[in-house]
């Protein structure tokens, strides 16, 4: 059999997705528990009106939990999906294409999610359709 050269070592390749998947999983646990606590236990019996929801969303803690949950869910989900999609692919160009697509989809999803919160935070939506 003919010998070929050693495939080029790609240094840190693969390390960051592995590490960040575990970091985001840990953060996800915190944000999901915080979300469930806020939604089901912090305001038991309170009347839900536009005003009360607005007051709540204008507080930094709620914005932090909502935005953090959104960012972590999107990253964790899309990083996992990327792993599935490139599982049987050995073509570096295909891997790069999938990674780029996941980043575009992730940033778009984040922007869309923050757009929902933006009227409460800034008085007007980020994107006007």
């Amino acid at each position, binding site marked *: *059999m*003919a*010998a*070929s*050269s*050693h*495939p080029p*070592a*790609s*240094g*840190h*390749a*693969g*390390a*960051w*997705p*592995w*590490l960040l998947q575990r970091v985001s999983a840990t953060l996800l646990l915190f944000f999901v528990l915080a979300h469930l606590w806020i939604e089901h236990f912090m305001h038991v019996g309170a009347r839900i009106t536009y005003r009360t929801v607005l007051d709540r969303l204008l507080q930094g803690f709620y914005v932090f939990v909502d935005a953090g949950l959104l960012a972590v869910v999107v990253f964790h989900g899309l990083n996992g999906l990327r792993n599935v999609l490139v*599982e*049987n692919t*050995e073509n570096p160009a295909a891997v790069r294409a999938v990674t780029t697509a996941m980043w575009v989809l992730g940033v778009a999803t984040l922007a869309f999610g923050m757009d929902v919160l933006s009227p409460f935070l800034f008085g007007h939506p980020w994107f006007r359709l």
Partner: protein
Amino acid sequence: MGSDVLFQVMRYDPRRDVEPYWAEYPVAVDDGDTVLMGLMRIREDIDGSLAFRASCRSGICGSDGMVINGRSRLACKTQVAAVVSDRGRVVLEPLRNLRYVKDLVVDQTPFWQKFRRVEPYLMPEEPRSAAERPMVLPQAEFDRLSKASDCIFCEICYSECPINGVDRGFLGPQALIKAFRFEFDPRDDGAAARYAPLSNVEGAWRCRTTFNCTDSCPKGIPITEGIQRLKRKLVGELLSGMQPAYRTPMPVESPEETSS
């Protein structure tokens, strides 16, 4: 001699056969007989052309790994009575994920190349005399590494790993557990040299922790746990800014050339 058991063996001689086929041999076996003893009876009494690897017959040399009734095992450690109840017969195939050579013999070349790629030996920072630097391994460290040192190179983990099946470039569980054995040895300073082949999309990060290697290892080595610890060490090295020490490339066969 005891009762006859049917051995169904995958036969293939690339010089003669167009494709693999099944051959069946009734073999007289006694209680306690191993699959390897049955194979030897076939070769001695029925068909001398049957090819398989074997040497020590006692689970030490790791030569006689093969797929027995659907799972990769050592033929010398597997009793006929323990597997015959599965299908009423003993079904033998060559190890998976390696190219067939003949009958139950596979080409081990990619396995050994990947093993060598992780530089599986102690690399002290600079060679010194024993007086300057005693190479003593403390008992606690020895206990931690001793299971990983038990590997007999039988290729059973390599055969059972589904990632080796879909990605011929993946180092495989055996190379990674050997890397673990030296990376965690306090006498070793070879982390930078091993960093590039290990922290790589075809290295430790390709492992999907299916535990097939741990389940199938005839020596009971906790391979998956070792690989996970190796990953954590690599993350520490990544965050500490380790720069890989690139070394002279070792010629290896490309995945296409070694695929079956």
